């Protein structure tokens, strides 16, 4: 096993053109196979001629593809599918790890806020108790066994739920930090302009900010509803999520501002 792909899988203009052609050819399988083989032989001939004329391999392939023309010249219709370039895939991976990492860390932060709110206004404010009849005396016994400081089943239940929120927050925080570490490592590795400009500058930050604001809006709406209709029971967690989402939105907004401000330093690929 090696890190490098075999030469015939490494890509290049000719391989990319043939991939695109394969995806665009329609008709009986034999016609598709024959046309592909025919065009492949043609491109190899053209590359050989260009190499003889003194071009490098990369330039020769580029020239051969330019000479044969667009895929539609061969198929009679425009390319049906195009494979996303490696740069776009890399840039998407960067965006996904950044947005996902910040979202998970924000969720962990919301768990911390939830714990704070539970300490201030009680666990029932953060996690509404189950309605009567939806749990058994065995459930009560289990919750009480885990909380020696109270004799109230409701209090033990809601404290247990807050404990679950904390555990979820810790897990989310760990995964979020891993995602951000992956983002940082990929960012260090992929410094080429092709990757940096494969998507519009600030697109990941803009998407992240919009998503975070949406989450914050839903959180506030849910909290208001629970405050007015549900006497505030369980309103704490959506408030915590909304606050954490606003922090994430602010983080993305700052990155977006910085990215747009420095755009002029990045020349197009």
């Amino acid at each position, binding site marked *: 096993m090696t890190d490098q792909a075999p030469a015939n899988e490494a890509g290049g203009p000719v391989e990319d053109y043939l991939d695109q052609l394969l995806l665009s050819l329609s008709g009986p399988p034999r016609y598709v196979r024959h*046309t592909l083989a025919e*065009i492949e*032989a043609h491109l190899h001939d*053209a590359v050989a001629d260009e190499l003889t004329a003194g071009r490098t391999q990369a330039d020769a392939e580029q020239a051969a593809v330019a*000479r*044969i023309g*667009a895929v539609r010249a061969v198929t009679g219709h425009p390319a049906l599918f195009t494979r996303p370039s490696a740069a776009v895939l890399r840039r998407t991976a960067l965006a996904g790890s950044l947005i996902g990492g910040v979202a998970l860390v924000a969720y962990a932060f919301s768990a911390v806020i939830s714990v704070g709110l539970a300490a201030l206004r009680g666990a029932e404010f953060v996690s509404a108790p189950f309605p009567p009849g939806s749990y058994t005396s065995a459930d009560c016994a289990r919750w009480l066994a885990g909380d020696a400081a109270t004799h109230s089943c409701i209090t033990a239940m809601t404290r247990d739920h807050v404990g679950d929120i904390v555990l979820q927050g810790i897990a989310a925080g760990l995964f979020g930090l891993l995602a951000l570490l992956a983002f940082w490592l990929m960012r260090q590795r992929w410094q080429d302009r092709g990757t940096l400009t494969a998507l519009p500058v600030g697109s990941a930050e803009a998407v992240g900010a919009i998503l975070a604001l949406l989450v914050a809006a839903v959180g506030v709406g849910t909290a208001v509803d629970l405050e007015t209709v549900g006497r505030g029971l369980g309103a704490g967690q959506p408030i915590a999520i909304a606050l954490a989402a606003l922090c994430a939105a602010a983080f993305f907004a700052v990155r977006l501002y910085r990215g747009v401000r420095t755009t002029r330093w990045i020349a197009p690929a």
Partner: protein
Amino acid sequence: MKSEKLKGNLDMLLLAVLAAGPGHGYSIITRLRDRSSGSFDLPEGTVYPALHRLETAGLLDSAWDVVAGRRRRLYRLTAAGEEHLAREAREWRAFSGSVSLVLGS
């Protein structure tokens, strides 16, 4: 030459090139370019749909062969293709002569 004009007469030109002997796609394009002193220089991929169309019409025949160590599809003119080319060439010469007469006046 305008590519539209060339495309309008591409079938006849391909048949004419193959009248000199069988050939594969790349060699047909090279011969077309050489015989026209570089005037007929169209996107090379456009030749293949035309070759396939001519084969479907029975004017060309093709077979796979190995040339210079590479598998290639060799096209050759059929009897119907020869007749078609002769007729097209006659009509073209008549048309071209008439156009020349008009332009010459």
